[in-house]
């Protein structure tokens, strides 16, 4: 019999039951909730007269719909205010811990949970948000769910699921100067497409991921959903254990030692078989940018926009105002967003600050620097990055999802381009008519300084 994959090991440890010819009953260790996808689930509980089964396994934050300025003032938009109030009322009623607006642990759900040590190897973690795949960076099975499933987890701490197929993406070799984890995942998606992972759970393997920091691994796993995969997973190692150890909700003392023994077993057996595999050479990857309206429409910075026949391709180019065969270098850019659950961790701001130091923001650029959490904001201050940004003409905003999905006031105006470190370049994603170009924090910082897209590789080499 073939060996087990890392995914199999974690999944199988959580199967409560198997329905004949049907799905499996999967136990959920951590349920993360936020204001946008939980109210209708709480309503479902109310209508059925049931309680949250395991409030101790449930943690809430406010992130999607929160302002990034003046968080101490009442929220102006009545609908947003109501949604946040509902979250507070529901959490109080069901005894769920809430890191609401202004709380020292408040932040984007996928930034907050790992930095508090809530996210741990070997766990199953769900949230009503597709970027829950982020937590797979710790060797956890983590995936996004719909609101009906949020209600199911509330009611039973379980979900009924068909076990996904297994995919492995291996990247070996040495990354070039200026190539960040964001470039690695944008490159992978540009090569295999936005639906290559649908029906699969993706393990990332190879020395490139082994050598990445936890922040980098989170960036990669975060975007698994953009190739259709329900989740991404990376085998936990010393980097993972060092990151988790000592965090607020991480196991302590003997409990840590005993969990560590288990965590060390979480790796794919050498004879395990995957349903699909892709391999890439790290040396082929360059700083990436997107030119279209899905994350698979990406090119290396020094490449030109390709030509395809499909109507959907031409529709995307029309929306973006681009032409096949053209370069994006020197395209004037008025908006830059550094933030989102993909790239709003301390390492991302360090990367941006490294470029910005000694330079000035271009006068045409409106730049939004939005930390992923209060703790990241605190670190930006403690490490002195704030001085670098402010001296260069940038201003740091307060934590939240912000312009990644533009539910709050952080909207890119119609027709404007935004070089963004977020995860989706869908039509109107950052505001009605907005045009998103996805890139790494380094590319975004360079764009903000130059006021246009530049070939960063020329500056680095």
């Amino acid at each position, binding site marked *: 019999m073939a060996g087990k994959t890392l995914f199999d090991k974690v999944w199988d*440890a*959580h199967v*409560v*039951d198997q329905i004949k*010819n049907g799905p499996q*009953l999967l*136990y959920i260790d951590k349920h993360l909730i936020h204001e*946008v*996808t939980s*109210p*209708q689930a709480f*309503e*479902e509980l109310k209508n*059925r007269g049931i309680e949250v089964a395991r409030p101790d396994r449930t943690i809430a934050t406010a992130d*999607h*719909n929160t302002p990034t300025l003046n968080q101490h003032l009442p929220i102006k*938009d009545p*609908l947003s205010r*109501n*949604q946040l109030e509902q979250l507070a009322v529901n959490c109080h009623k069901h005894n769920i811990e809430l890191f609401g607006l202004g709380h020292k642990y408040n932040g984007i759900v996928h930034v907050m949970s790992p930095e508090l040590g809530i996210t741990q190897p*070997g*766990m*199953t973690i769900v949230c009503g*948000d*597709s970027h829950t795949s982020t937590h797979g960076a710790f060797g956890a099975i983590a995936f*996004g*769910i*719909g*609101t*009906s*499933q949020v209600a*199911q987890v509330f*009611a*039973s*701490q*379980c979900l*009924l699921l*068909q076990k996904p197929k297994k995919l492995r993406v291996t990247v070996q070799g040495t990354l070039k100067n200026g190539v960040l984890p964001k470039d690695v995942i944008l490159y992978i998606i540009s090569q295999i497409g*936005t*639906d290559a992972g*649908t*029906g699969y759970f993706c393990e990332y393997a190879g020395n490139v991921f082994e050598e990445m920091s936890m922040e980098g691994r989170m960036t990669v796993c975060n975007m698994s*959903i953009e190739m*259709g995969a*329900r989740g991404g997973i990376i085998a936990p190692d010393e980097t993972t254990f060092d990151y988790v150890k000592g965090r607020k909700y991480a196991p302590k003392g003997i409990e840590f030692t005993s969990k560590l023994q288990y965590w060390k077993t979480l790796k794919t057996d050498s004879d395990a078989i995957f349903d699909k595999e892709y391999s890439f050479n790290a040396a082929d990857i360059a700083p990436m940018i997107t030119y279209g309206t*899905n994350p698979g429409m990406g090119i290396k910075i020094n490449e030109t926009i390709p030509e395809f026949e*499909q109507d*959907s391709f031409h*529709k995307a180019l029309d929306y973006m105002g681009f032409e096949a065969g053209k370069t994006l270098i020197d395209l004037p850019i008025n908006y830059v967003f550094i933030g989102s659950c993909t790239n709003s961790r301390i390492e991302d701001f360090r990367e941006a600050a490294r470029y910005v130091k000694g330079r000035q923001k271009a006068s045409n650029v409106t730049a939004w620097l939005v930390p992923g959490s209060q703790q990241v904001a605190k670190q930006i201050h403690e490490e002195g990055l704030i001085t670098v940004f402010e001296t260069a003409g940038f201003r740091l905003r307060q934590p939240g999802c912000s312009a990644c*999905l*533009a*539910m709050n006031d952080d909207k890119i105006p*119609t027709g404007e381009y935004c070089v963004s470190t977020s995860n*989706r370049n*869908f*039509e*109107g*994603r950052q505001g*009605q*008519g907005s045009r998103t170009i996805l890139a790494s924090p380094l590319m975004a910082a360079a764009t903000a300084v130059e006021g246009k897209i530049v070939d960063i590789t020329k500056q680095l080499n």
Partner: protein
Amino acid sequence: MKKFVQLTDTAIPLPTENIDTDQIIPARFLKATRKDGFGQNLFRDWRYDNNGTPTSDFVLNNAKFDGSILIAGNNFGCGSSREHAAWALSTYGFTVIVSSFFADIFRENALNNGLLPVQVSSDFLKSLLAFVTQNPKAEITINLEKQIIKTPIGSNEFDIDPYKKTCLINGYDDIDYLILQKEKIAEFELNHTL
């Protein structure tokens, strides 16, 4: 959940590929705390211009087309996990979505709301989109029991998880089933230390 057994109706063609849930229901409409009312903003930014005037070239604004079946391009429902997309399609009046490929989370959300995703072959989808565009009054039948979609240009069988099929035919929710498993779950929890 409402039951689904069989449906015969006209269909609306929307050949665009990779329709993401941000197009189905833009994020700015996700501030509601109830499930109703999303249908009026379904495909909002394709259906209306920035002034709120209906766009003349979008299929939902074309009086020739009507019906509770949406036929859409490959990889329908990718992107965000927002179940609001399924609620918007459902409250607008759709009961069936036909495509050659569905994103995972959307498929589950649809099934949890009595909205049936019917996955057909790429060739069949292409022919069907072309035919329905030319013949807006053509009737299409979806039989869940037999897992078949019948059209004037032929039939295509479709797959569905047998458990989900039973749920749809009888109008059962997963939550009904899960609540009945409390003892099994409690027993599992006794030996589960993660």
